C-alpha cells in the first residue's frame, strides 16, 4: 500500500544513513559525539512520549519519572549486582513499565486536568523519594560509576564501549530498535485503537474498543521505552541524580514532540535531534534560552501543532498537486 519511494527519497535516505553510520569520523571531537549520543537518548524519549501524547491523547506530563526510574534501576542493578548494560537496558524498561502499570491502575480511569496533574505530582513524588531515600539512592549526591560494558566475545575483536565512538554506535542501535518497535506498535491495530481513543473516547468505547486496555498498553509501553532510555543514559554519563525527575526534562520532550510533529513518530525523531543541537548551539545565551524555547512551544502548540513534519507534508502536498496540474 505504501508508494514506492522516489529516487530523491532513496538518495535522501542513503545520505542520512551514511551520516549516521560514519558520524564519528565526520564529526571530529568527543564533544559533538556527546551531543549525538544525547540526541539518540532523546529520540527514544520523545518517540515514547508520542505514543501517549500524539497517538493516544493522554497528556502524561510526568513522563520523565519513567526515564528516571529506568536510570535508577539500571544504576542500582549495575552497582549492586554487577549486571551489565545488556541486562540493565531491559531491566530499566521493565521497572519503569511495572511502575507505570501500577500507577495506571490507579489513575487511568480519569482524564482531563486530573490526569495531568496527577502525573505531574507523581513525578514530583518520585523526585522526593529519590532525594530522601538516601540509603538506596544516595540522595542528592546521586549514583556514580555506572560503566559501559566491554565486549569480549572470542573470535571477535574486543569492543570497549567506554569509548565514545563505540557508545555512539550502541546508542544508535538501541534507538533504531526502539523506534522500529514503536513504529510497529502505532501502525498496528493497537495503534489504530489508540487513535480512536485520542479522537473520541466515548465513541471508541461504543464501537467496542476496550479503552481501558488500550490506554494501559499505551501508558506501559511508553514507560518501558522511557526506562530503556534511562538505562542508556545512566551507562553513558556514568552518573545519575534525582534531578532526572525535574519537570524541565518533560518540557524538553514535549517541545521535541511538538516541534517535530506529534502523532507521527518520525516527527519526534527530528524534533529530538533538532532540539538537542539547538540548546547546545544557543548555550551562550543562557538568559534567553528558556524564554525562547517556551515561546517556540507556545507558538507551535497554538499555530502549528503538526510541527515540522506537518509543515513538510503541507509543502509536499502543495508541490504534488501543482505537479498534477502540470501533468494534466
Amino acid at each position, binding site marked *: 500500500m505504501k508508494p514506492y519511494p522516489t529516487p530523491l527519497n532513496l538518495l535522501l535516505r542513503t545520505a542520512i544513513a551514511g551520516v549516521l553510520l560514519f558520524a564519528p569520523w565526520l564529526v571530529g571531537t568527543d564533544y559533538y559525539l556527546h551531543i549525538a549520543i544525547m540526541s539518540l537518548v532523546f529520540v527514544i524519549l520523545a518517540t515514547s512520549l508520542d505514543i501517549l*501524547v500524539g497517538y493516544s*491523547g493522554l*497528556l502524561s*506530563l510526568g513522563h520523565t519519572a519513567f526515564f528516571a526510574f529506568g536510570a535508577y534501576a539500571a544504576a542500582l542493578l549495575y552497582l549492586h549486582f554487577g549486571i551489565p548494560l545488556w541486562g540493565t537496558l531491559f531491566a530499566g524498561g521493565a521497572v519503569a513499565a511495572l511502575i507505570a502499570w501500577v500507577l495506571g491502575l*490507579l*489513575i487511568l*480511569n*480519569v482524564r*482531563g*486536568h*486530573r490526569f*495531568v*496533574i*496527577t502525573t*505531574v*505530582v*507523581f513525578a*514530583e*513524588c518520585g523526585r*522526593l523519594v529519590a*532525594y*530522601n531515600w538516601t540509603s538506596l539512592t544516595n540522595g542528592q549526591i546521586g549514583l556514580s560509576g555506572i560503566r559501559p560494558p566491554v565486549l569480549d566475545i572470542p573470535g571477535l575483536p574486543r569492543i570497549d564501549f567506554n569509548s565514545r565512538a563505540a557508545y555512539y554506535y550502541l546508542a544508535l542501535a538501541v534507538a533504531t530498535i526502539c523506534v522500529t518497535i514503536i513504529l510497529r506498535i502505532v501502525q498496528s491495530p493497537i495503534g489504530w485503537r489508540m487513535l480512536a481513543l485520542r479522537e473520541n473516547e466515548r465513541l471508541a468505547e461504543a464501537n467496542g474498543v476496550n479503552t481501558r486496555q488500550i490506554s494501559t498498553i499505551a501508558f506501559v509501553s511508553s514507560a518501558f521505552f522511557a526506562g530503556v532510555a534511562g538505562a542508556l543514559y545512566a551507562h553513558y554519563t556514568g552518573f545519575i541524580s534525582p534531578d532526572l525527575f525535574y*519537570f524541565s526534562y518533560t*518540557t524538553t520532550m*514535549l517541545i521535541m514532540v*511538538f516541534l517535530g510533529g506529534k502523532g507521527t513518530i518520525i516527527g519526534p525523531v527530528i524534533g529530538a535531534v533538532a532540539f538537542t543541537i539547538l540548546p547546545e548551539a544557543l548555550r551562550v545565551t543562557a*538568559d*534567553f534560552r*528558556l*524564554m525562547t*524555547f*517556551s*515561546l517556540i*512551544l*507556545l507558538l507551535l*502548540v*497554538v499555530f502549528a*501543532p503538526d510541527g515540522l513534519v506537518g509543515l513538510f507534508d503541507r509543502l509536499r502536498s502543495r508541490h504534488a498537486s501543482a505537479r498534477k496540474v502540470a501533468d494534466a
Partner: protein
Amino acid sequence: MEFIPQYIFNGLVVGCSYALIAVGLTAIFGLMQIANFAHGQFYMLGAFFAYWLTRIVGLDYWTGLVASVLGVMLVGVVLERTLFRILRGASLSSSILATIALSIFLENLALYVWGARPQKIVTPFKTGSLEFLGIFTTPERLLMLLVTIAIVILLQLGLRYTQTGKAIRATFQQREAAALVGIDIDRLYTLTFAIGAGLAALAGVLLGTIFVVQPAMGGVATLKAFVVVTLGGISSFAGGIAGGLLLGLGESFGAIIAPAYKDAVGFILVMLVLLYKPDGLFGKWS
C-alpha cells in the same frame, strides 16, 4: 500535645494562600473551561509587582498591594483578550500545553527582569513575633488569614446579590442559555479572568510579605492550585476554599511525621480523592 494548635495555625495560614489561588483558578477553569497552567504566574507577578512598587518605586505597602493586584488584573485582561480567546475552542491538551509554555515564558521573563535572587516585600508591621494562646505567629500571617476570610465573605455576597455575580453563576451553570438571555459572555469571561488573576496576585503579595519573592514561586503555586482544585472539585468556590485548607492542614501535620515528604501529602490526598470521589469533595461537572 500542647503544640497541636500551633500546627493547626501553621496549616491554616498556608491553606488560606492555597485557597485564594485555587478560587481564582476555579473561576477561570470552571467558567471558561480552560486549564490555565500559567495561573501560578499571576501569583508570582503580584508578588514581584509589589516588591518593585514598594522597594524600588517607594510606594507604601497598602498602595503597593492594591496597585499590584490591579496591575496583574490588567495583565490578565490582556492575556485573556489575546491568547486565551484563541484557546477558547481548543482541546484540553492544547490549552494545557499552551499555558504551560506561557508559564515557563513568564517565569523566565521574571528571572530576566528581576533576577534569581529572592527578594522581600517590606512589611508595614513593626512587631515581629506575636503570641497568643501559646501559638506563635506574625502580623503578616494574621493578615493573610483575615484577608482570606474577608474575600470569602465578599465573594459569597457578590455572587449572590450583585447583577454580575448572578450572571457569573448563570453562565457557570448553563453557558448557551446565559448567552441567549443576553448576558455578554465575552465581557463576563474577561471580568472573571481578571478576578481570578487578581485573587492569585493578592495571595502573592501577602505571601511575598511573609516569605520571599522569587521567579520559581509561580510553578509551585500552579501545582498546588491544581491539586486543590482536584481535591475540592471544579465547579464550586467552596470546594476551592475547603480544598486549600485541607491541603494546608494536611501538609502541616504531615510535617510532623515526615517533613521531607511534606509535598507528597498533596499526592496522597489526590490519589484518595480520585479513588473514592473522582469529582472532588464538593464538586460535580455542571
